[in-house]
């Protein structure tokens, strides 16, 4: 008969913290944690002491003082009488505008190039390789500067558009002329495009801390509503197709649902375009898209597209050849194979590194100051910081904002990633 022998229970001794493997890892972790906490506390204390020594307090009230400076490119109303917080918002929106368009263009371009790089066509494949290697191996700042210099040095000055009386009499044409039915003017400062105006707009709603442009939001609501209604229509059509085998004709209903409400609304509000015209030194009226914005967006898109192309290529190569061979065997043509078989599977591999590229692009917008683009770094981290002398506050606030933007992009992309992942059921 076997005897159950108890393992002798040692009483706990201090030396076991080091010599006993059961406790050692805890000991090390706790010691490191304490050291780390002490170091952080020391850094904070040091900062506070230095600030106190310089007679500076940590406060953010400067955000509500008059800013006093002007910003060239603004998406929301701003004058030099607005406060620094408003300037921050203007900069933030400028940052987001570049990031938004940059991500879209970079994705379109990157996916196209990544797919084309795998093309069986030798010339196209090599050209795309050259593109990728050229763009990702030269610093981004140089691309931004190059794009900007090309835009501002090769385009005509506003006064080249002027037709003087003598020129009209002599029948001479001006040195430069507007494009697309005389509605768009590209000068060495920016691109002047027509602005949408409303004779009977809905005005703005003042919420105290910000004002809402009701016209804009109303149109947005109608467009979103139309798209939703159209989706319902298509879903109903699909349901009927599955139930009866006949798909009802929907194309004219779709067009009606998508466009009629918006057009009716635009006509009702007296929509018309304001065409830019040369007045004094510059074009007046219309919307000025500064070259700094264009250069930054174009350069960021081209640069990031090179990285996205490589990610897409890697994603496609990760799908086993058997998949495309099977598709070919079923008689699918190469582009259908790519769209229906390869890309949907490759997305699983592509999306996680793609998130990083979006984050990079967003953070790289802070290079805008090199081409005089006043983004968040230019307003809050540049002029506001300088005029108020609140370096620490401005820097911390800026870091917090960039962090928040990045985390939001990450969260949204992770949600999308979940939706395209393999579903294990």
């Amino acid at each position, binding site marked *: 008969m076997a005897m159950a022998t108890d393992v002798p229970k040692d009483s706990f001794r201090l030396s076991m913290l080091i010599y006993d493997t059961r406790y050692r890892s805890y000991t090390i972790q706790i010691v490191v944690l304490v050291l780390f906490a002490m170091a952080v506390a020391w850094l904070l204390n*040091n900062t506070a002491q*230095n600030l106190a020594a310089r007679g500076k307090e940590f406060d953010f009230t400067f955000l509500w003082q008059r800013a006093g400076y002007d910003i*060239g490119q603004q998406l929301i109303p701003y004058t030099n009488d607005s406060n620094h917080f408003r300037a921050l918002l203007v900069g933030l929106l400028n940052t987001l505008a570049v990031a938004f368009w940059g991500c879209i263009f970079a994705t379109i371009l990157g996916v196209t190039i990544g797919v084309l790089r795998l093309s069986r066509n030798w010339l196209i494949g090599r050209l795309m390789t050259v593109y990728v290697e050229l763009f990702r191996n030269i610093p981004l700042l140089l691309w931004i500067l190059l794009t900007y210099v090309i835009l501002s040095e090769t385009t005509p000055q506003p006064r080249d558009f002027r037709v003087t009386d003598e020129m009209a009499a002599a029948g001479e044409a001006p040195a430069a002329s507007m494009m697309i039915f005389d509605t768009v003017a590209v000068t*060495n400062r920016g691109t002047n495009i027509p602005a949408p105006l409303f004779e009977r707009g809905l005005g703005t709603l003042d919420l105290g801390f910000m004002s809402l442009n009701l016209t804009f939001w109303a149109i947005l609501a109608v467009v979103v509503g139309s798209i939703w209604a159209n989706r319902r229509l298509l879903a109903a059509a699909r349901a009927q197709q599955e139930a009866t085998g006949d798909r009802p004709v929907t194309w004219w209903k779709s067009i009606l649902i998508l466009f009629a409400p918006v057009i009716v609304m635009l006509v009702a509000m007296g929509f018309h375009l304001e065409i830019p015209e040369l007045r004094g030194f510059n074009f007046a009226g219309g919307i000025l898209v500064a070259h700094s914005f264009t250069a930054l967006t174009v350069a960021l898109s081209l640069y990031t597209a090179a990285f996205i192309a490589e990610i897409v290529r890697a994603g496609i190569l990760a799908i086993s050849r058997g998949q495309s061979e099977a598709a070919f065997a079923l008689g699918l043509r190469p582009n259908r194979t790519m769209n229906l078989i390869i890309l949907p599977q490759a997305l699983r591999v592509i999306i996680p590194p793609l998130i990083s590229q979006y984050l990079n692009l967003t953070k790289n917008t802070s290079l805008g100051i090199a081409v005089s683009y*006043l983004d968040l770094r*230019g307003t809050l981290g540049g002029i506001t910081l300088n005029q108020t002398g609140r370096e620490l506050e401005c820097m911390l606030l800026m870091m917090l904002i960039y962090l928040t933007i990045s985390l939001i992009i990450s969260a949204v992309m992770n949600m999308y990633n979940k939706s395209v992942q393999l579903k294990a059921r």
Partner: protein
Amino acid sequence: MKKTVFFGALAATTLVAGLAGAATLDDVKARGELICGSNTGLTGFGAPDASGNWAGFDVDLCRAIAAVVLGDATKVKFVPTTGETRFTALQSGEVDVLVRNSTWTYSRDSELALDFVAVNYYDGQGFMVKKDLGVSSAKELDGATVCIQTGTTTELNLADFFKQNNISYQPVTVADDSEAQRQYLAGACDAYTTDASGLAASRATMPDAENHIILPEIISKEPLGPVVRHGDSQWGDVVRWTFYAMLIAEEKGVTSANVEEVLASTTDEEVKRLLGASGDMGAKMGLDNDAFKRAIAAVGNYGEVFSRNIGEGTTINLARGLNALWTQGGLQYAPPLR
């Protein structure tokens, strides 16, 4: 990786903490070198010449301070700073003194915790335009695109000027003088605005200087001067009195060429005190008695420095104007050295 960054930050903070409280004069003496915050390159005021030696109106003041403190006008290290980085460089102790066309304003004096110890150039903000633009007054600039350097007082003055005159403009905010010049010359902006002296200096370096005019309006007061950290009065005194010594030398006709001669023959008690022949003026400030004499011998008096770097006859070609001595109708006035 994380650890390296952490220890780097730790070391940097310790360094800053160590510097902040110390007396700058002792630091400079111990180091044997003056670190002077300078412009990134503004011809006539502070820019490296073809052989890499720094030269200019502001640079000479740094050299004079080095001559006063260390006895050698060449023991200066120039750290180029932009409009944005200059005050942080000074506050963090990266430079000992900032002589870089910096405007003395209330908020810089109070909020930024800096001390402007003197005004070595009385300036004002102006506009430069191309001649063929056909503009003769800044008030005709309605709707113009204006290039402006970020991190300067000129941004605020510009906004105020256009608002007061009820005219509009489109600002193009650029990082430094060279980028502003490039955009202005490319025609990306109609006008370039900064301190009038800076405009003259920029124009001097342009290939077609005669095609650009500086408009007559001066829209602000821009007293430019050397800056030190708040709370180190001794060092502030040294910088201030180095500058005043150069002014007094001009007033008394002491130049770099005749300083020994004057010292031997003068009967003027203030000149004797200035050159260290009587009294213990240098010692009162923790310096040698002939400290100011060395500065004058090395870089010359205020008038010499002015005419050599930016005065009439140089490419910058600035008149003395407000910067003439008070005895000649200007504003440059030194307290008595006694």
